[in-house]
Structures are given as structure tokens and as C-alpha cells.
């Protein structure tokens, strides 16, 4: 049994990291907004989804105009990523303005309702536009970066099998790593990053420090949503097909990842995302083996959630969250 598990481990890791990377970046968006407003921004999954649609729409458009063929694919992708993240970034800012800002001094949970509302609204809006334009809201983009690779783990040791993946997986992982490093640097090492953390802890006092609180909050939404949108594009390229409802499930998982890592903690979100991705993949591939066929892949979420719960029981502040003992 162990041998079987080992055998497929390289493949599980590659797939798990790819999925986990996506969770991780979406989780960042949750964590950032949570960190600053203590709001579970339910709409974030939908921003991700919108990003995916914008990206695919652009790619389809570019294919139609023959541009995609004319320029190196990677350049096209970068272009799409940049444009999409700017668009979704502004979208995030707009959502905050209209749906959250008016509620800033209201009870915390009511903003959650507004967020759920935005989430429904966006789902239907995207659905409507896509369906209107294409007659079907399940959208499949032009296929890109489909070259297949395999890493020859078997040559390292015969107890491993080779791992197969596509170019897009590689691109996805590289892009995500760049985004994360950039963000980590921004938040922890720059002044605006520090301002974000200060606003997160005490808005009123932050404003006494010459910080424009609204601007900082907008900035936070911009960055989080831009990252989310860009991830959407990467997701679409990796998985090919998208629909308006992908944001819900992925958002949920990503939020779980954020909590696993310690919500509000940027590195935690990254680690939590990767961990969740790998765990899920591992469970789907091996639960059957591990339980002698009693539980199968359908229990993978149970497995993931169970681990989450166990982690939180022993470390209630998440993996990377610092236990802040309340000063009494």
C-alpha cells in the first residue's frame, strides 16, 4: 500500500501544487480584505470568476482577430493578465465603494449580507452577458500552453512514477510565486503595506497618523481583486472551461485555506492554500487505498475539512497566525 502511495506521489504533488497555488492566491484576497475590514468578502470568489471570464473573452477576441497567432503566446498571456487584473482591481474598488463603505460603521455581519448579495449579483451578471453573447454560459477558451511534459521521477528512484503536467501548470506556478513574493514584500516591507496593517487594527487612529483610510482600503481591495482576477485567468488557461459558478466552490476552498493558514496572515494564506491543494489531491488519489476501499475520493473534502478542524483545535489561530493572548 505504501509503495502504491509513493508511486503516485510525484503526480499528486504536481497536481496538488497547481491547484493549491490557485487556492493560495484567492486566499490572499480573502485574507487581505479580512485583515483590513474583518469582513469575509464573499464576493471575492466572484471577482476571481469574473477575471476568468474577462481573460477568456480577451483570448477569444484576440484569436478572432488573429492576434493570438501573431504574437508569442506568453506575451499574449501577460497582456491578458495585466489588463484583467487592472479591470478586476477597479471592480473590487467599486464594490467596496458601493456595497461595503456605506456599512463601515454598521454591525460587522451586515456587511456579510451585502457581500453575499454582490456575489449573487455578479454570478448572474456574468452569466447573463456570456449567455447573451454566446448562447451558453459555459465558456471554453482557446487552448494554450498544452504541451505536455513529464518529470522523470522514475529515474531518481523506481519507487516513483513519472509526473505528467502541461506548460500551463508551470506558468501557473511561476506566476503565482511571483505574485506572492511581490505581495509579501509590499505588505511587510513598504510603507503602504504598514499603513494597511495599521488601518486594519485601528482606523480612527490611523487617520491621526496622516493616513487616508479610504485610500488604503481601496488600495487593499484593488490589490486583492487584481490578484484574484489574474488568478482567474490562470485558472481558465489551466482548466480550459469556466462557468459563472466556479467562484463559489473555489472561493469557499480558498477561504478555508486562508483560515487554515491563519486569517489575516499573508504567508499563512499561501501556505494554507498549498497545503489544502496537496491534501485534497492526496486524498482523492489515496483515500481508497488508505481505507481499504471503504472511503473513496468522494471523501476528499471531508478529509480536508477534518484536518482543518484538527489543526484549528490544536492551533486555534491557524498555522501561521500568532496567538494573540488578549491583554486583560
Amino acid at each position, binding site marked *: 500500500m505504501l509503495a*502504491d502511495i509513493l508511486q503516485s506521489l510525484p503526480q499528486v504533488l504536481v497536481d496538488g501544487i497547481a491547484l493549491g497555488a490557485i487556492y493560495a492566491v484567492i486566499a490572499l484576497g480573502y485574507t487581505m480584505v479580512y485583515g483590513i475590514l474583518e469582513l469575509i468578502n464573499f464576493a471575492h470568489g466572484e471577482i476571481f470568476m469574473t477575471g476568468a471570464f474577462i481573460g477568456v473573452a480577451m483570448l477569444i477576441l484576440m484569436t478572432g482577430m488573429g492576434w493570438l497567432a501573431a504574437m508569442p503566446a506568453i506575451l499574449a498571456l501577460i497582456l491578458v493578465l495585466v489588463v484583467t487584473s487592472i479591470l478586476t482591481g477597479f471592480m473590487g474598488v467599486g464594490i467596496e465603494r458601493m456595497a461595503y463603505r456605506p456599512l463601515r460603521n454598521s454591525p460587522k455581519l451586515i456587511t456579510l449580507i451585502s457581500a453575499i448579495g454582490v456575489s449573487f449579483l455578479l454570478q448572474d451578471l456574468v452569466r447573463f452577458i456570456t449567455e447573451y453573447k454566446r448562447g451558453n454560459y459555459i465558456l471554453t477558451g482557446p487552448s494554450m500552453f498544452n504541451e505536455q511534459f513529464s518529470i522523470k521521477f522514475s529515474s531518481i528512484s523506481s519507487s516513483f512514477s513519472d509526473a505528467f503536467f502541461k506548460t500551463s501548470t508551470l506558468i501557473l506556478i511561476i506566476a503565482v510565486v511571483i505574485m506572492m513574493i511581490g505581495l509579501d514584500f509590499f505588505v511587510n516591507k513598504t510603507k503602504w503595506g504598514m499603513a494597511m496593517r495599521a488601518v486594519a487594527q485601528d482606523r480612527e487612529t490611523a487617520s491621526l497618523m496622516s493616513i487616508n483610510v479610504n485610500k488604503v482600503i481601496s488600495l487593499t481591495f484593488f490589490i486583492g481583486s487584481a490578484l484574484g482576477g489574474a488568478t482567474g485567468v490562470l485558472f481558465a488557461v489551466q482548466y*480550459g*472551461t469556466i462557468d459563472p459558478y466556479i467562484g463559489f466552490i473555489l472561493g469557499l476552498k480558498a477561504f478555508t485555506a486562508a483560515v487554515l493558514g491563519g486569517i489575516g496572515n499573508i504567508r499563512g494564506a499561501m501556505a494554507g492554500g498549498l497545503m489544502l491543494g496537496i491534501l485534497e489531491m492526496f486524498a482523492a*488519489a489515496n483515500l481508497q487505498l488508505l481505507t481499504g476501499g471503504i472511503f*473513496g475520493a468522494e471523501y476528499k473534502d471531508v478529509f480536508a475539512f477534518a484536518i482543518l478542524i484538527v489543526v484549528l483545535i490544536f492551533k486555534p489561530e491557524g498555522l501561521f497566525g500568532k496567538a494573540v493572548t488578549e491583554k486583560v
Partner: protein
Amino acid sequence: GCNSSGGSEGSNGGGGSGKVIKIATQTPLSGGSATLGESIKLGAQLALEENKKKFEDLGYKLQLQPYDDQADPKKGVANAQLIGSDKSILGVVGHLNSGVSIPSSEVYEKYKVPMVSPANTATEVTDRGLKTVNRIVARDDFQGPAGADFAINKLGAKKIFVIQDKTAYGTGLADAFKKAAEDAGAEILGYEGITVGEKDFNGVLTQVLSKKPDLVFFGGLYTEGGQLIRQARDKGIKIPFMGGDGMDSSTLVEIAGDAVTDVYYTSVAADASKTTEGKDFSSKYKEKFNKNVESYSAYGYDSMSVLLKGLEAAIEGSDGDLPAREKVAEEIRKIQDFQGVVTKVGFDDIGDNKFAKVYIYKFSEAKYPGVQEGEISK
């Protein structure tokens, strides 16, 4: 028991040119499988409108009342209550999903509203022996074995990996397939479930990769199916895939792209373009709705036609009153040889269609529909 709701038949709105008889459709008009649901509704609408004249002559005004079950059992049941309590509704065409049909039909049975399903394949739909429930397509315990037979005897599959989507439909079909395949001597290497709505099935596929089967069977719908096939091919899994009527959709091809080659599917829906009646229907449909037919359009049409036939029989001798629902249900069940545009219909004692067939298709290129490879009747 004591039926306290019965009572007053009351005066129904209607008036004017005879009594209003409504026939409901209940299919998903929004959400994931709205396209299929819509096509059933439109097919049914077409049939109803063609029959309007006839019923007007009998002194009744026919009306279509479409409901949206959102492919959600709870919604289906809630709507069924509405349908049941609307006395002018004398029949239902629906649903698309067995998972919705099963609970909703419990309500129909309560109110004695006859239902004819154009698409449900799960065995439990009729196996409960409800008097009001009928379907015109084949059952999963016919479809599954037919697929298994084809996989083993035609494709030579010996080691099979079964995946299903953990819905009422997917489980039912996959179970039926698995059982038949095992009986026929194939080895089932794995039996796994995936989650509807997700997009990454690499975990399960890793198992497929390491178990090295020579065929994968998927019990589920095209959205997940397409994704599954595509990701399998990306992993270098080149063996044939097979699925059931849930894969019978042009969207499957869109999603899977070239990966769709070497995919087989059984379907309970005939290709309408094969017969002249079917072709006529398609062009009528296209003309009226400016849309191409989907696999279940014609079944929506035939279901409605069968239903109206039963209704017509029930009306005889009802003296211009609304016929009782029980009567309509009885008359429908009595139908033994009705010729529709895509299928002949004759119900057995639990409401299954004796003439239902299973068709086997293959995608050899990225084009829908696939090429028909076989047609199996009971």
C-alpha cells in the same frame, strides 16, 4: 386516509371559450442544465400548440404552464405543490433530472397529477410503482448493461475504472454499469466519486493512471465529463472513455475539444435527424423557436403528445367538465402503441416504455453528435 383537501371543485377562472386545461412542464430553466431543460419545454410547447385546435373543438382551452425546477429537488417539490393545488393542471411533462423527479413525483402522486418524463433514466423513478409516473425513455438498468456489453464485447475492455458524480443519476447509472460489467466478467479496478461543480479531477485521474485500466466509465453529466476527459488526456491517459446519456451534449465537445476522440456514450435519445419524422420535427422546431434541437427536444414533444392523448381519452364522457386527474393518469398508463416522432410509446404496468431503446455513439472527432455505433432494444 381522510382526504381533507379534496372538497370543493370550485369554479375555475377559465370561462369564455370552454374550460381551461393546463399542462405543466417542470424542467430546469436556469442553472447548469438549463439548455436541456429549455429544450424539453420548447418541445412540449410545440406539441401543445399543435393540439390546441383539437381540444378547442372538444370545448377546452389548452394552456402551457412552465415551471423551473432549477435541477433542485427542493424547488421541484415546492413547484409540485403549486402544480398539485392548481386544479386546472391535469398533467406534467418533466423532469430532466431523476434526482428531482423522484421527490416531486411523490407530490404528484398525492394530488394524482399524471407525469410523463422525457429524460429520467433512474430505476427508482418508476420502481416505486406510482400510478401517476411514466417515462418514455429507457432505464438505467437497461442503459448501463447495454454500455457494459458494448464496452466488453465490442471494445474488448477487461479492466474498467468507474467514476461517478455522486448524484442520484450518476450513482444509479454507474452502479448499473458496474454490476453488468462485473457479471460479464470484467474486472473493476476502481469505483470513485467526484464532486459536481469542481473543475479539477486530477486526484482521481492519478488513480486511473496508476491502475492502468483499459476503459474508464463515467456516470455523470457533460460538464464534469468533459473536464474529466480533457484532464485525463493531459495526463497521458489515452484509453477509451465511456459515459451515459448525461454525456449526450454538444457542450461536452466544446469543453473537451480534441480530447473527445475515442469517447463513447450510450444515450436514451435517438438522433432526430435519422428519420424523416425527426427531420420534419427539427425544422418545425427551428422555424418556431429559431433554435437547433437538442437531444431531448423531441422527447419533450413526444411526452406532451402522449400526455395529451391520454387526456383526450379521459375527456370522452366527461360531459364538458374537467376530467378527473385519476382518469387522465389511468388513460395515459393504458396507452400501448403510440407513435411519436422519435419513439414508439407503450407503457407497462409501472409506467416504463416498452419500446424504449438505447443508442450507442462514438466521438471520433470533435464534433457533436457522435457517430451512432449501435441501437439496442429490449
